[in-house]
């Protein structure tokens, strides 16, 4: 069945496999109080553990007194992207619809909070118009609703498209939406708007200020609270009949339709809910950054979120949360730290130093380069992600027919060429693949 001949595995793949084996051995072999580490990390136990870590994180940052607020700020940005990853996971991971324009919904959320709290806009003749002002608490659900409605509106005409066409159409929307906000004077065009921070709240325990510019702790806990709610919501809906319908569509659209799944309504609900979570993330993002301008919403954001969920494991809630934490913490914090370390180092700053050429290198610029490398390596080497979706892997394992047919073709090709280094994927790759849309059959038609 497998076409890869003995001894032709690439060294990259070999090293990767041995790394995987070692991690698995550690998770199953090492025991704490009689149970393997994996037991502590799986299911609700793992979730509680992560939540506890997130709760104590601000206290932990106090150990680095001068960096404490920077680290909490990084935590907030990580949290916002966790929301985005959870939302995109509904669309790509569950329903199998590749959305490359997810940033559009982030834009809608961010502008909802900016326009809603600032209460100003410009009319056609460039005069300032006063609008009613709302606060964060009202705009959180409103932002999710606005983005969700746009998700449904944009999704309705496009969802009948084939997977790769849908991807390009969503990409087009993701580009048009920021251009629209940039060019229409109503939202202050390229200048953008400044969101008004929420007022401090008096509680019996003291004043809680979610909008403080100096102490981000309160806002951090707000984001964490929203994440917990959203995660529980996503788990509930995943296990509901709607969630099962999403997965059925992802696995086999025709079979799902034949079994009575309403394709349009099911796809639209995935698109709308995913968009709503993007909007929620956008509202928090707008509050956090306080300034919202169209230039900051790039295709890079859509892809960063996609990388998060591909890295963590499509369709796996712990996976996409982990992916978002890893990528975003790396992007917003570690790269800056790396910059500081490299640039302040005497090996670099001294003009005679051999490593002086590093002085002009900004590691932040390498952010998307690394994103791209991670994306390619994950898709090629471990498409199921760091924490694969167990149920999905099992489902895909059973899908042997298409994979077998394809591997026969692959074997034919390999013989024709007589090329020793063919790494054309054998059946095991095809069956283990947990990527979006399992339309392996599509290639055969």
């Amino acid at each position, binding site marked *: 069945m497998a076409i890869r001949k003995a001894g032709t595995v690439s060294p990259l793949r070999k090293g990767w496999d041995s790394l995987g084996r070692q991690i698995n051995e550690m998770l199953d072999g090492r025991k704490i109080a009689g149970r393997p580490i994996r037991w502590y990390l799986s299911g609700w136990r793992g979730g509680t553990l992560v939540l506890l870590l997130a709760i104590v994180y601000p206290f932990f940052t106090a150990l680095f007194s001068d960096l404490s607020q920077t680290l909490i700020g990084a935590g907030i940005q990580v949290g916002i992207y966790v929301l985005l990853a959870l939302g995109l996971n509904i669309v790509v991971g569950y329903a199998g619809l590749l959305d*490359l324009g997810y940033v559009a919904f982030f834009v809608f959320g961010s502008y909802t909070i900016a326009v809603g709290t600032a209460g100003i806009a410009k009319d056609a003749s460039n005069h300032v118009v006063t609008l009613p002002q709302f606060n964060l608490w009202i705009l959180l659900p409103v932002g999710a609703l606005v983005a969700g409605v746009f998700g449904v509106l944009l999704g309705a*005409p496009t969802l*009948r*498209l*084939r*997977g*790769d*066409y849908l*991807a*390009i*159409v969503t990409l*087009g*929307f993701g*580009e*048009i939406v920021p*251009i629209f906000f*940039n*060019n229409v004077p109503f939202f202050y065009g390229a200048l953008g708007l400044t969101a008004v921070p929420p007022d401090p709240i008096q509680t019996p325990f003291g004043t809680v200020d979610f909008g403080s510019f100096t102490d981000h702790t309160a806002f951090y806990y707000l984001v964490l609270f929203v994440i917990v709610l959203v995660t529980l919501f996503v788990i509930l809906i995943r296990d509901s009949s709607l969630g099962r319908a999403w997965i059925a569509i992802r696995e086999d659209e025709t079979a799902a339709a034949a079994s009575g799944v309403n394709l349009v309504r099911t796809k639209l609900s995935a698109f709308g809910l995913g968009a709503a979570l993007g909007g929620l993330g956008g509202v928090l993002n707008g509050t956090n950054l306080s300034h919202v301008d169209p230039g900051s919403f790039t*295709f890079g954001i859509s*892809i960063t979120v*996609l*990388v998060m969920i591909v890295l963590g494991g499509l369709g796996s809630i712990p996976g996409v949360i982990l992916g978002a934490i890893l990528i975003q913490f790396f992007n917003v914090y570690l790269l800056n730290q790396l910059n500081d370390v490299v640039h302040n180092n005497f090996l670099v700053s001294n003009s005679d130093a051999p490593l002086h050429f590093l002085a002009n*290198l900004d590691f932040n*610029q*390498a952010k*998307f*380069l690394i*994103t*791209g*490398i*991670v*994306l*390619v390596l994950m*898709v*090629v080497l471990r*498409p199921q992600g760091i924490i694969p979706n167990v149920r999905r892997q099992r489902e895909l394992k059973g899908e042997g027919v298409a*994979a077998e047919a*394809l*591997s026969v*073709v*692959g074997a*034919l*090709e390999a013989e*024709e*060429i007589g090329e020793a280094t*063919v*790494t*054309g*994927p054998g059946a095991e*790759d*095809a069956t283990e*693949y947990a*990527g*979006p*849309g399992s*339309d*392996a059959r*599509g*290639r055969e*038609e």
Partner: protein
Amino acid sequence: MHVLAAAGTGLLIQQIENGIILGAIYALVALGYTLVYGIIELINFAHGDVFMWGTMVTLTLTQMLGIHGTVGGLALVGLLILFLAASMAFCAGLNVVIERYAYRPLRAAPRLAPLIAAIGVSFILENIAQLWRGADSVGYPPVFPAITFHLGSFSIGLLEILIILFSLALMYALNLFIRSTKLGRAMRATAQDPEAAALMGVNINQTISLTFLIGGALAGAAAVIYTLYIQFVWYFTGFEFGLIAFTAAVLGGIGNVTGAVLGGFLIGLIQALTIQYWPGGNGISWSDAAVFAILVLILVFRPSGLLGQQIPNKA
């Protein structure tokens, strides 16, 4: 995009001329998308960035040769041949390497896997270029002499004439190759039915590599033309330009070679005219949105494009 807004009389004709030249470049890049899609049904997202690397190669060669201004006579001919050879070879090689290491391992994987890999490759290519050349665009000297022919209010440059003739020649050569050579027949066979083609003795891997090679070479040629004509080089060109060229391929009917050429010229014209005639006069900032809107509309209402065959929805 960056078409110089022409002023004065003959505005419309001038913009049509701009559109045709832009369209020729779009068409050359669109051919790369359409050939690859036709054969392995992959939107080669990195194709625009391969094109961008062609512009980088042209810029680098120019700088290495110490050219800062206009070149004339035989030196110009030699230079053009050198640029074309270098850029076409580089882009063709790059495209083949990408296929070999990023797409081929995923050939049996679900269809969206190679698309995600292609997006990753696109990011890698873009950002290496950015790290190397910086985030700002780099100016390119006016190497080609400004020789202009006038006909009443209508004027056209020698460069423009050469661009149109050369692009058409390349497209014709491609057409001949696909129609009447053995390798071209293998490409068509593979596009129709890879399994059957393999059984008939077509070397599938080699044919797919060849397709990427040709697509890359056309992008390389387009890159030289683009650099000489637009006169700047920017790491982000690949994304913008690539998406527009992809739109051209879709407009013509993806997988259809004639369609890609037709789509390229149409999109070039639409863009040039949007820039000039958009109500409110803010055409430049809307022209990209207009192209994306066209893309969305075609995909929604006529996914097979103008000349493409009606294919059943594989969902």
